[in-house]
């Protein structure tokens, strides 16, 4: 009744407004909705732009040649192909490159040594010109009457090749980091998973105290245990060893694993296990046959979490390694000692970021869930 009355009033308004040539109520409402939606998208777009621009620039810097990385302002995208020119001179051959902005050729190098030519174009321009090809180019220039213009493809991944070959220890460090992550996953998932199951299925004395200590240990600064662990690990013969590092990393990871696995097991009804036991399975068998397969996706996410924790950890790794750094430490040291070579730094940084971002993509559902129920 009340509603209908209002409708009538609305209609009245509508008619009046129509007559006076202003916007109708409905139109105004639509306009308001559109405005709200537009402003929402503006906020979202700005946010996305602010979040991704720095990552984007790290990525493109990592593909740039030395020459590009040190021009100002930087090009928006690294060149895929460059136009080069060779000219015969008294000394040998002069190499110039076409500047895309000014459309002029800039002189780079004057040599008649194919080896030097090949090395220079590799390091400075990220080109792949072998010595034989260089010699051929020289010959072609002479045959063409002293001047030759040609295009070359740029190898975008050259910085990565250089980073991993030039940086001492980069490849072994990468392997070690993966090894450490694997050990950390095994330790924290087995130990933490058991406790998580106990938390989900049993009521026992001291549960709250344990819950509290798990959270507390998780929040305790990693650096505080890393320092004394130097001596403890040295006594065990595990100092500067992947296994030793993963023992330390697991301390923080176990807490998270307990937490996540507990919520995973809570989501699987006890009735399933009981049903299996009715059909003659024992408790362990019921767990293995029913609960574990159901929990597997969650456990995989949990493993990825442990991987991320181990892969990203830097402070403990700096303190606990000496001659066998992890990949994070290698990148840290290149960053700290950086006297240029921005593009190489970027390559190292991106190599470090890539696995982390990919794993996050896989577990984002769980991250969002977990944050929703942060207070266990």
């Amino acid at each position, binding site marked *: 009744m009340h509603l209908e009355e209002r409708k009538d009033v609305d209609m009245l308004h509508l008619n009046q407004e129509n007559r006076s040539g202003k916007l109708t109520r409905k139109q105004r409402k639509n306009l308001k909705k559109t405005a709200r939606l537009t402003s929402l998208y503006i906020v979202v777009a700005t946010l996305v732009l602010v979040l991704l621009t720095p990552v984007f620039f790290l990525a493109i810097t990592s593909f740039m040649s030395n020459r590009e990385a040190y021009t100002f302002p930087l090009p928006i995208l690294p060149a895929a192909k460059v136009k080069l020119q060779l000219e015969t001179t008294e000394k040998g051959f002069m190499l110039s490159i076409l500047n895309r902005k000014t459309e002029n050729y800039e002189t780079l190098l004057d040599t008649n040594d194919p080896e030097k030519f090949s090395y220079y174009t590799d390091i400075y321009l990220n080109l792949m010109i072998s010595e034989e090809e260089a010699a051929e180019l020289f010959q072609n220039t002479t045959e063409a009457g002293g001047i030759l213009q040609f295009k070359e493809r740029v190898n975008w991944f050259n910085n990565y090749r250089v980073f991993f070959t030039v940086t001492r220890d980069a490849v072994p460090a990468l392997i070690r980091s993966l090894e450490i992550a694997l050990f950390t996953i095994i330790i924290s998932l087995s130990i933490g998973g058991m406790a998580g199951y106990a938390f989900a299925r049993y009521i026992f004395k001291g549960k709250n105290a344990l819950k*509290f200590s798990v959270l507390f240990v998780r929040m305790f600064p990693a650096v505080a245990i890393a320092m*004394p662990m130097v001596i403890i690990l040295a006594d065990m013969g595990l100092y500067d060893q992947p296994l030793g590092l993963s023992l330390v990393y697991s301390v923080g990871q176990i807490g998270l694993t307990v937490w996540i696995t507990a919520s995973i097991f809570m989501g699987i009804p006890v009735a399933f296990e009981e049903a299996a036991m009715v059909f003659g399975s024992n408790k362990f068998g019921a767990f293995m046959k029913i609960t574990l397969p159901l929990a597997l996706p969650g456990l995989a996410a949990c493993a990825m979490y442990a991987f991320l924790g181990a892969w990203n950890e830097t402070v403990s790794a700096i303190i606990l390694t000496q001659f066998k750094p992890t990949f994070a430490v290698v990148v840290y040291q290149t960053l700290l000692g950086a006297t240029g070579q921005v593009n190489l730094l970027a390559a190292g940084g991106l190599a470090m970021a890539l696995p982390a971002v990919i794993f996050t993509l896989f577990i984002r559902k769980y991250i969002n869930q977990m944050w*929703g129920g942060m207070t266990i």
Partner: protein
Amino acid sequence: METSVLVQKRTQTPRQKLNKAIPYLLVAPVLIYYMLFWLRPVIKSLISSFTAMEGGFTLQNYLMVFRDPSFVTALRNTAVITIFSVTLEFILALALALIINRKFKGSGGLLFIALVPMALPPVAAAAIWQTGLTSHGWLNSLLTNIGILQDGAKFYFLTGSEWQNILLIIIIDAWQVIPSVMIILLAGLQNLPPEAKEAGLVFGGNKLTVLRRITLPMLKPTITTAVILRLISAIQIWLILVIMFGFNRLPVLLERVIYYKEEVPGIQFADQMAITYTIVVSLIVSITAIIYLQVSGAFGRKEGR
């Protein structure tokens, strides 16, 4: 008849005992692990922070830390960075969460993108800003390309005053952290029953009062969680700052630890200093953590779920 009951009882008792022991057996590995690799090192560093170089009890290490001219600066910088970054991050994240709190096309994609900065390893984030903030870095290039800077003019981000440097660190940290705080708050907002808000509006509240009187109080648990977790990690900011400014230029507590441990090698007092600094940091973080656990109710919950 009677005997059979008795027999049954006898045979079942060990089994029941075992059943009762299962949860303890399951949590025992965690406890043992924590004893060996958490409690032991923590006690060890506590003891060595009270031990003189020649052995014997001493307070000398703490005196040395407190008299360290950079200690007060480090403490002050840590406090300033923590307080300002957490406040700024929280306010902006809450504002964004309130704006974005509705279903729209691409909201899933946004949630993933928002996770990216937080997912970046600290060294990768440091690489981003190291390549970006040098005078010929990508930020100046970007500003030139979009016309804000002209004629080769540049901002010199890294040579500012101490306060400018702190501001820079706060902004970088905000970039990395705001999106994930926003996600935590969004998750909290989406768990709220919509009826509460509607009731507030029906009873004549305007949007602001509904936000202040209904939404925010109901969101309080999520807010405390987000804020205290942020406090704990903000106290431990160091890597980005060292990569940007090097050691000693903008000392913070954790940077002091790494400085004494790694950059002053071979001298024993440096190790003692580093350990004592870690105790100070741990103490501050522990107090924050305990407050968090207290507030979030981890103590007071009933046994069981």
